């Protein structure tokens, strides 16, 4: 993206909530919208005398993430205390990792991973102030159910160069982690959180500009919009001769605006020091091997397979491999297919289905839509067998997305079946030739292109229910 000679430089900071059975440092279960404070204990409430204990599964899941991101796993890593006061932080410090994290120097797609580490999540605060907003006065209620949930924090290098790229890469990360089975990675639910560090610099410049941090973008679309807005804002400032001030900006989904979270008079001094209550983590050969071997087929490998074995185009393969919902949808459709080739199903899914869903304005999960994978597979079959034209197929798909149902029934009820009766078609062709006599002359005269008008006339009369290739052949014959 060229923002008037400036290039955006974007890095992402991602928090992944792990789907372990218990919290990071105590045996409380994880909760999903339960009553407040029913999944707590003296440890995760920070009662005096309590001590943390490290969840074995969290280590395993973190090692799997590190393997999937091709990171170097530290032979020895330790936990640190990150100290600050806030009601959602029961101990007055978060147990996290600082300069000796679990994993460093990885890569996913085109983006390098700076580091990945483990930490515990904060509790939830509900503001019940008069204005109900974080800036109002009044009270807050703290629910510690979420407090202590294991998190893996992943920080990328600032390798991303556009808001769209950020969105795509974040989707790739999500697909990758989802396939590991270590997290629900759902942005709307908060099991995947993505913040962005954004700066801009003159194209070709080597130095980095001042960066700002963007928070509260809880969908891929908002991520893209938020970054777009910030890049524009920074460009505006620089062009106006002003400087970028390092700040944290809160994204407002209602209108896409960004407001600075006013930094406190005193800066955040986290006073990190090694956590004395926990001993170092030194992953053994066995732990590392287990992590590597438990990796499923990851997106890049899957894309390869789709191209070489299924014969998909690189674009279709990328969509299906890098966006897990489409991939899953595709696999289900192929499984249900009764005659349609994987390739044609793939084309329908990555082409018309994606386009149709986008039209409805959302990030709709194709698996949530009314058009089931089985239905789309059947549709692909009907078109491939030339029972309906591609154009009719599009119509059927729109119906499926809007109302669901069965393609064969829709074809029946809307009379979309391709005209296969040749005598009927011949009659229509003859009429078209007669109606477009000028074009007919031109074609007879050698101007092949003019046949388009005749084809168009046939299509109009048949309401697109004829196969284009067959029509063209027939016209030529009858001329």
């Amino acid at each position, binding site marked *: 993206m060229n923002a008037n000679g400036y290039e955006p430089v974007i890095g992402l900071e991602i928090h992944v909530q792990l789907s372990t059975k218990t919290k990071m440092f105590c045996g409380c279960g994880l909760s999903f919208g339960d009553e407040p404070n029913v999944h707590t204990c003296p440890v995760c*409430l920070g009662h*005096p005398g309590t*001590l943390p*204990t490290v969840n074995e599964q969290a280590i395993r899941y973190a090692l799997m993430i590190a393997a999937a991101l091709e990171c170097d796993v530290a032979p020895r890593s330790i936990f640190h205390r990150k*100290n600050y*006061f806030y*009601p959602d932080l029961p101990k007055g410090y978060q147990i996290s990792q600082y300069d000796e994290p679990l994993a460093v120097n990885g890569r996913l797609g085109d983006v390098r991973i700076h580091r990945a580490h483990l930490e515990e999540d904060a509790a939830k605060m509900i503001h019940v102030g008069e204005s109900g907003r974080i800036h109002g006065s009044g009270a807050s209620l703290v629910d510690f159910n979420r407090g202590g949930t294991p998190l893996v924090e992943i920080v990328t290098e600032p390798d991303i160069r556009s808001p769209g790229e950020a969105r795509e890469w974040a989707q790739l990360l999500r697909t990758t982690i989802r396939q590991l089975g270590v997290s629900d990675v759902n942005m709307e639910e908060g099991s995947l959180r993505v913040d962005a560090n954004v700066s801009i610099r003159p194209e070709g410049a080597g130095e980095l500009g001042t960066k700002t941090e963007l928070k509260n973008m809880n969908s891929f679309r908002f991520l893209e919009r938020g970054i777009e807005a910030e890049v524009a804002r920074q460009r505006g400032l620089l062009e106006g001769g002003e400087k970028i001030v390092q700040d944290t900006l809160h994204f407002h989904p209602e209108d896409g605006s960004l407001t600075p979270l006013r930094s406190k008079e005193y800066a955040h001094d986290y*006073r*990190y020091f090694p956590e004395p209550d*926990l001993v170092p983590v030194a992953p053994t050969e066995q732990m590392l091997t287990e992590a590597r071997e438990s990796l499923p087929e990851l997106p890049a490998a899957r894309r390869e397979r789709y191209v070489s074995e299924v014969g998909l185009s690189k674009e279709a393969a990328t969509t299906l491999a890098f966006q897990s919902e489409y991939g899953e949808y595709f696999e289900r459709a192929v499984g249900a297919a009764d005659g349609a080739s994987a390739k044609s199903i793939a084309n329908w899914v990555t082409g018309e289905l994606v386009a149709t869903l986008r039209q409805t304005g959302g990030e709709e999960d194709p698996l949530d839509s009314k058009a089931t994978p089985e239905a789309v597979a059947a549709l692909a079959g009907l078109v491939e067998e030339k029972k309906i034209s591609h154009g009719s197929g599009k119509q059927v798909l729109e119906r499926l997305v809007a109302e669901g149902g069965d393609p064969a029934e829709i074809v029946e009820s809307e009379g979309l079946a391709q005209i296969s009766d040749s005598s009927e078609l011949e009659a229509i062709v003859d009429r078209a030739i007669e109606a477009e006599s000028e074009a007919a002359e031109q074609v007879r005269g050698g101007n092949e292109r003019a046949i388009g008008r005749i084809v168009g006339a046939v299509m109009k009369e048949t309401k697109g229910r004829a196969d284009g290739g067959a029509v063209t052949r027939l016209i030529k014959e009858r001329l």
Partner: protein
Amino acid sequence: MSDELIGLTASQAADRIRAGDLTGEEYFDAYREAAAGDSLNAFLWTADEAGASGDGPLAGIQIAVKDIFCTEGVPTTAGSRILEGYRPPYSATAVRRLRDAGAGVLGKANMDEFAMGSSNENSAYGPVLNPWDAERVPGGSSGGSAAAVAGRLAACAIGTDTGGSIRQPAALCGIVGMKPTYGAVSRYGMIAFASSLDQCGPLTRDVTDAALLLGALQGEDPCDSTSVGIDGGIEPPIRESLDGLRFGVPRELAGDAEGIEPGVREVFERTVELIEELGGKVSETHLPHAPHGISAYYVLAPAEASANLARFDGVRYGLRVSSEDLTDMYEETRAQGFGDEVKRRIMLGTYALSSGYYEAYYGRAQRVRTKIAEDFSKAFESFDFVVSPTSPTVAFKLGERTGDPLAMYLSDYCTVPMSLAGIPAISIPAGLAKPEGEGPELPVGFQIAGPAFSDSAILDAAFALERAIGFGQGNGGPPA
């Protein structure tokens, strides 16, 4: 009858109870009566019922428990206003293990607030007095535990030692106090002061009782990732001579050390001679970095404490000073809930960790710690034990050092290095000495330290020495 019962050591009482000559109830009643006459302010809470049950090596024994240990349903204050009335929802592992061994909690012992102090003058619930002289301090921070045992309000007690808080009050009260190897006893349920230094240990009338208690306390605990227990447990001490054992006297803690009172030095030297008479070999050793122990300790301990005490914020339990403003609530709650010494150490610790100062203070202190540990390792290549006076002085007067925090900190000069190295050390009463200035003769403690996990060996050597010293017939405390 009561007097006689109270005169028994815990081991003696346990034997009698096991033999059926004494019931747990009778024993408890004797102590309950004694506790009623507590003029030392040693207890913050006493039990109404015996609470000791079942079998086990401590069946029927009553233990004074420093108020830093969480006891389920029983007030636990850590000597602070900020936890006034707080009843924990669970009991510390150390307390559970004592109960599992058959013992009961006789009472919660007074202490310096959050274990910060060397005189028990920092308690929000009033100072504890030394049974030897009511105008003097019992030492701290386990002052209540030590005074209870020395004052015959309890046969035995448990306390915590971070930089000397068991050993120093034991020395000042003329009883036995031991800090085991770091990791020997679980810290789960022990309100944290400095996590990498805190250890639970016994305060008793004699070495046999100390071994009995430590045997029941030690062990790996899944609730405490830093606990390992002691391999092989604790053997009952039986040693009679010190033949073949090598004792090192570090120049820095005994010979050259400043601030050691003449009376203390005299008792120390006499005890060293006694070791030789018992067959032990004594010679000088070096702990070159020991003189920097106080400096390192008073960076590391307050730093960890500043984080450990951040949870006392009025949100979920304990004192809250209400306000419409959150920052105000935090600041007022903590200002009113914490005493001066606690505030001082929180400030010190926060400063040492703060941006720009971490390397100069915390970073360096951690390196000094490494050097001190190395010094001990080196000494233990040639010696089985390292010995020193436990405290540079005998018990000082109430109010004498409260105006000078640094002077107070220097009381820990001889005990802090062992804490930093994580190695075990015991203090046994070795004699009496006159303080500088005037006053009655007061107890002097003798410290024996050994390599990590040599706890049994230390108890064994201390046992032999204790017999030879014959301090109060091993019955602890001032003459009854």
